[in-house]
């Protein structure tokens, strides 16, 4: 059996028993990549030689010793490009490692490959990449989701054992659902954002894409912790995230939010999620109906707050210090043309919206008001978590859609994030795990189950996810590519 089919836990066993070596694992990936990348287009670049050199010296006794991990092209890895899916950073090479990368290296992992993404993490399909879209391994005519579509696709296609992505409004969980892998967004402040190119500073978190829940626990342990270089990271102790895996679900209470089970969800998604919920009951969990009344406002609040923060964060891309620069003209013309030529349409749309809602005369009506509704959204979750350990619901209203289906209708694209967005606004943790398939035109498309956990209770969340995973075979299904 090819090494590329293994989870990290399985690979680790083989590496430590010397059945396989880190260079062999890397080479197996590179062969697989050569075979399927022409279809998937999940990677924007990879430095095989650098990774091979690290593989040869790898210490397999470290927690992730010798394990290659693919990195979304928005996280700085020293010596490598960090395009953010944009032309405005043409030529940029990182001069430092993001904190998560330094932590991965300390754990023995090998950053390998830069994953495609929606430009500056803005999008839900990876169609907004300036370098072409990535393809869903289950049906390449369909999107892998976004913005971390490349990361999800390469894991689902076994072109990577795991990948890092970032999640601002669902950009890890949604692609994980559409591609049939595990995606975890940690609690805001759990993982350092230092070295992550910022989209919305109060919402962004880095998290793992993996084949199994156990692997997600391993990766979360490797990257978590307070970082003096990120003043929004918290001094919460980092437990052993695998410590509760295997415990049964007696006494566990799961909340079904009535606002997340509405008409308009694809019937096959609804059926798969409800079947999973019944499975949870048979495993001993108690299912309770909860209400998150502010749900209808989540998308509106998000598209004010996230775009406002993005308009500030993207002001630095001006042609002065890095990346592309438009020629000629005075300084204002340089700024205006550099940004016009360098940014794609979705980025420009969001900068315009964000600038508007922060502008004089509109700040109170839009941004300040959105922040107040954000408090109400957060309170919804706090109240629900008084009654349940985690919230259970679909990750997306539909399975993977065809490329080109939404790209002309920004609002339709935004509304697809409806189930993932509130979790970022509330700042708590969430994950998507596979729970079955929908069938369309004879093609099987993965369906994702979302679990939203209490802040900093990722160990509990992983326990709950793991119990379901181990009682089904979804995680063993491989995309037909």
């Amino acid at each position, binding site marked *: 059996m090819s090494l590329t089919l293994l989870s990290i836990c399985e690979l680790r066993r083989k590496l430590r028993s010397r059945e396989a070596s880190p260079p062999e694992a890397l080479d197996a990936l590179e062969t697989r990549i050569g075979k399927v990348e022409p279809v998937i287009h999940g990677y924007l670049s990879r430095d095989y030689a650098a990774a091979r050199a690290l593989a040869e010296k790898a210490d397999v006794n470290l927690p992730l010793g010798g394990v290659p991990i693919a990195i979304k092209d928005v996280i700085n890895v020293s010596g490598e490009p960090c395009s953010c899916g944009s032309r405005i950073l043409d030529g940029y090479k990182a001069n430092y490692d993001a904190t998560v990368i330094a932590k991965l290296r300390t754990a023995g992992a090998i950053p390998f490959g830069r994953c495609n993404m929606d430009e500056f993490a803005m999008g839900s399909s990876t169609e907004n990449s300036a370098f072409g879209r990535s393809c869903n391994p289950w049906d390449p005519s369909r999107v892998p989701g976004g913005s971390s579509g490349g990361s999800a696709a390469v894991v689902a296609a076994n072109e990577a054992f795991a990948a890092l992505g970032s999640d601002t409004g669902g950009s890890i969980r949604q692609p994980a659902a559409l591609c049939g892998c595990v995606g975890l967004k940690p609690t805001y*402040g759990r993982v350092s954002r230092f070295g992550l190119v910022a989209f919305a500073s109060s919402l962004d978190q880095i998290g793992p894409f993996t084949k199994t829940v156990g692997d997600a626990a391993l990766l979360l342990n490797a990257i978590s912790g307070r970082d*003096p270089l990120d003043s929004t990271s918290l001094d919460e102790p980092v437990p052993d995230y695998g410590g509760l895996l295997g415990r049964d679900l007696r006494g566990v209470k799961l909340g079904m939010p009535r606002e997340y089970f509405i008409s308009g969800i694809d019937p096959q998604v609804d059926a798969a999620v409800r079947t999973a919920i019944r499975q949870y009951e048979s495993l001993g969990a108690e299912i309770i109906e909860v209400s998150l009344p502010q749900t209808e406002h989540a998308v509106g609040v998000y598209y004010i707050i996230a775009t406002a923060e993005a308009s500030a964060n993207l002001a630095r891309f001006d*042609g002065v210090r*890095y990346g592309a620069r438009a020629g000629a003209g005075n300084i204002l013309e340089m700024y205006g043309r550099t940004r016009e030529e360098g940014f794609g349409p979705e980025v420009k749309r969001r900068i315009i*919206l964000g600038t508007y809602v922060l502008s004089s005369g509109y700040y109170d009506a839009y941004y300040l008001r959105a922040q107040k509704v954000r408090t*109400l959204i957060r309170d919804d979750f706090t109240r629900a978590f008084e009654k349940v350990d985690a919230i259970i619901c679909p990750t997306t209203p539909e399975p993977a859609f065809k490329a080109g289906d939404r790209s002309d209708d920004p609002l339709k694209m935004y509304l697809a994030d409806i189930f993932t967005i509130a979790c970022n606004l509330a700042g708590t943790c969430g994950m998507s795990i596979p729970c079955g398939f929908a069938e369309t035109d004879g093609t099987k498309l993965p369906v994702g189950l979302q679990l939203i956990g209490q802040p900093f209770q990722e160990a509990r969340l992983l326990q709950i996810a793991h119990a379901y995973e181990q009682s089904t075979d979804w995680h063993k299904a491989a995309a037909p590519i």
Partner: protein
Amino acid sequence: MSDQFDVRYIAQLARLDLSDAEIAKFQSQLGQVLSHVEKLGKVDVAAVEPTAHANQIVNVFREDEPRDWFTPEIALANAPRSANGLFIVPKVIE
């Protein structure tokens, strides 16, 4: 409120040299988004404090001591134009 949404003016604030076609397209697309967002006007936020960040941490300080970071060479390494340890840009002050 959304009829005062002037894309051309906002683009100027955001230093984006949008084309006329883009301005027209965004005016329409973002107009739709703003209509959706107007619903927030109906929420009762009278007694509600704004949430800027999920975690209420304040005053994260460190000792006011210098430490090593990028050398000037590293800081300039990605510069489109540089000389004498400086980023070169078009004239700023007339």
